[in-house]
């Protein structure tokens, strides 16, 4: 089973251990981290430089293209646009956290493979995150819903991403029926 990415933010009190300490506590892909460094550091560099979770990509200083999207409390958020100081008690999911603990792919990931919704692949994690956010808000997204995705792609994967989202939506509906 895939994780429920639309899960509400955990209350601060739910996060354990509770031993008194300083810094910023956050959950990343279900794992608790404590950051005691610069609170102004954007999440992107924490993920990449500190944790070496390199799946989330650098697009630009303004989050160009959406390659740096992650889910913060279920909502697609630019990882370069959010400083660590604003993430205390938050739940972050990156592309590495989309598959289940045993490595089973989320239907959306499988749909991206099946539809070949990949060009060079650099911006793909961002498309996955934005699509995940979309699918939690719209179980059966229309073309206009899909048009709202903020991502950009130089290789031209957009039509195949559109097919992949629809395929994933259909497969997830099947999954819930079964």
């Amino acid at each position: 089973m895939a994780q429920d990415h639309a899960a509400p933010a955990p209350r601060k009190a739910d996060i354990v251990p509770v031993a008194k300490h300083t810094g910023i506590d956050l959950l990343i892909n279900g794992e608790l981290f404590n950051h005691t460094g610069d609170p102004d550091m954007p999440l992107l560099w924490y993920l990449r430089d500190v944790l070496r979770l390199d799946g989330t990509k650098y697009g630009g200083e303004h989050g160009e293209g959406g390659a740096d999207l992650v889910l913060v409390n279920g909502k697609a958020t630019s990882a370069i646009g959010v400083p660590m100081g604003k993430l205390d008690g938050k739940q972050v999911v990156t592309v590495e956290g989309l598959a289940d603990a045993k490595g089973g792919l989320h239907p959306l990931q499988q749909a991206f493979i099946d539809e070949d919704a990949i060009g060079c692949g650099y911006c793909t994690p961002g498309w996955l995150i934005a699509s995940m956010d979309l699918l939690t808000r719209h179980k059966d997204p229309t073309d206009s819903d899909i048009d709202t995705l903020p991502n950009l792609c130089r290789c031209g994967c957009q039509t195949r991403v559109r097919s992949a989202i629809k395929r994933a939506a259909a497969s997830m509906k099947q999954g819930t029926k079964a």
Partner: protein
Amino acid sequence: MSVDVQLSRRRFLQVLAGTAGALIVGVRTALATEPPVPLDMLGDTLYGLGVYVRIDADGDVVIGARDPDTGTGVATSLPRIIAEELDADWQRVRVVPLGLGVANGNGEPRWMYGQQVGGTGNSMPRAWRDLRSAGALARWLLMQAAAQQLGVPADRLHTEKGVVISPDGRRLTYGSLAAAAAKIAPPQNSPALKTPDRYTLIGQPADDVDAREIVTGQTPYSFDQHFGDAVVAVLTHCPWPDGQIAEKDYSAAMAVKGVLKVVELKPDPKLPPGQTVIAPAVAVIAETTWQALQGRRALKLSWKPGASGSESTAALEQQATSLLGSDSAPTTRIRDDGDVDKARRKTARRIDATYYQPWLAHAASEPMNCLVRLDKTGATLYVPTQSPQQAWTVVQRLTGLLPDQIDIRVPRIGGGYGRRLDHDYVAEAVLLAQAIDKPLRLFWPRDEDLTHDYYRSGCVHQFDAIIDNKRRILAWNQRVASASAQTGRGVSSDRLWTSEVDVNQLPAGFVPDYRSDWFSLASSLPRGPHRGMPHITNAFAVDCFIDEIAHALKEDPLDTRLRLIGDARLVPLQGGGAIDTARLTNVLKLVADRINWKNWLRSVNGLGIACWYVDGAYVAHAVEVSMQGEKLTIERVVCAVDVGRVINPKGLEGQIAGATLDALSTALNLAITVKDGKVQQSSWKDYPLASMAELPKTVEVITVPGEDDPTGASFLAMPSAAPALANAVFRVSAVRVRRLPLMKELLRLL
């Protein structure tokens, strides 16, 4: 074959002895992560059957991907060709990027894998020439080993899916034969290749070999590679390649926590573009990326321009129009068939048009970056490069190391488009690593990428065509002005046009009197290779102009094209080869049928069509658009391609759909403008790639099954997409867009 195996082993032993230290050290320490590539390809547990194939005793097959994969799918399609001839079980094949194969031949580089280059459209033709025999050779060695073990002559054995089978049904797996096969001497002549009727992989759809890792965020691009102790450099370049520092104060930058050093860099004027620093620069080196970025922000720095400070794209267009408007001789008369002047004198009708296309950047997704470790006996680099051999040249010049002391690793690349055929960023990384004497990652923030590129020159196309009273195009006169991408790159002045115009481009060879002139623009803005050039700019102008001719003749533009192409025949190309008009006509008719072209006159929506020929491949687009007020909607796009034999239909379809969208996105909105020598676009906000909503919902791809040798496909679908769009826009709006980007011009003219 043992020769090559030994060469590989020797290299491996040298590595063990510490030549390229990091290779082993990195793997053996927890500090650095290393991909399994070199060990898998060179290690002891796998038996080498040539430089591309390794087979494990348990039957796993490792196939090396020679050419860098910038998203073109060559990391899948090239190994599929080897696996086909090897008769490997694809489920057991693991593909690894090879990195640069270079050995030391008395101080000169000896390229172990031949030419290694990606994204230039020739990976597939090269692979078809030599990689098939790499697979066939490995299979031959396995069959010899099986023959010895089974006591059956090799020519009575056959293979399938990783198993050698004898006439009496005994089966030996490749894994069990690998050790023995690796000791067998190769034959004098290459073993015979399979006949196509025996193909089981070629022609069948395959997922991208990296797909699973990509969707789980596990694919390490160069920017995701780590040396445990590497520092990070970010830099800011002078807006002018020939400018210099006016005022500076680095104290605030140095005061940022973690900042180690501020280093100034300058281009080496003796070196060609792409082999040295692109413009004067100041780099901030820090312990972490975030610290380096903060340090960069804290730089107090102002620049002053050199001579290029007076340049502008507007003035360059003026220069072009005045050159084309004058009687001055062209820089090069590229082609002059028949007698255009004579045709003009007996003119029945003359049609003129001029097209304007902007400067463009590459805008690759993965930022310019390079990770480098240097010491006295070796250099190890992770480089997103389309040409590892060129990268090697740059590193060797700056370090003076021996050929095989330079280890260039090329993971999957976040887009190239020609930008990574140049290696200014590699030169910068090496210079900075030398300055700080530490392993170092260089990375360019996005604004540096757009403002410091080897741009595609803007261009002006001026046409006149002579039409007789039977509506035949008798004469075609084409005058193009642009700044050559090859200036300063060792190309003789009479060949500078080759990056700007193709001598064989349509309709050359189809019009009795045909002339093609090129005028060189003088500009100091950096230029370089750009995806699909010279086809992109020329296809747009030519395919739109043919549409204008059709309109002037009050004719269906499909009919005009079909008449121009004419009967099924081979039209010879200058320099060899020929255009097969039947194949060109076929792709045109396929897209016309699919988009229901017979309605072109009655349709409320606008239909547009275009076709092109690229190095043995044929492409056509048909586009349907609607307009409501000022809102343009691309309703449908159909593309038909004939690339000869299709290796991986799934990969090809992705390439065709992707390149179509890239071409549309570029034509709709993109332009680089320069004022006072400064590029005015610095983020994707002002260089707006098309959004999901602006692009069509699907690209309908038709691939023609073929028997001819496969061609490249990475940019094949680009040339005809934009003119088909502009032609469709004309049908729906009656506005002829002769200037790109299209949306801006359309809104101006409406």
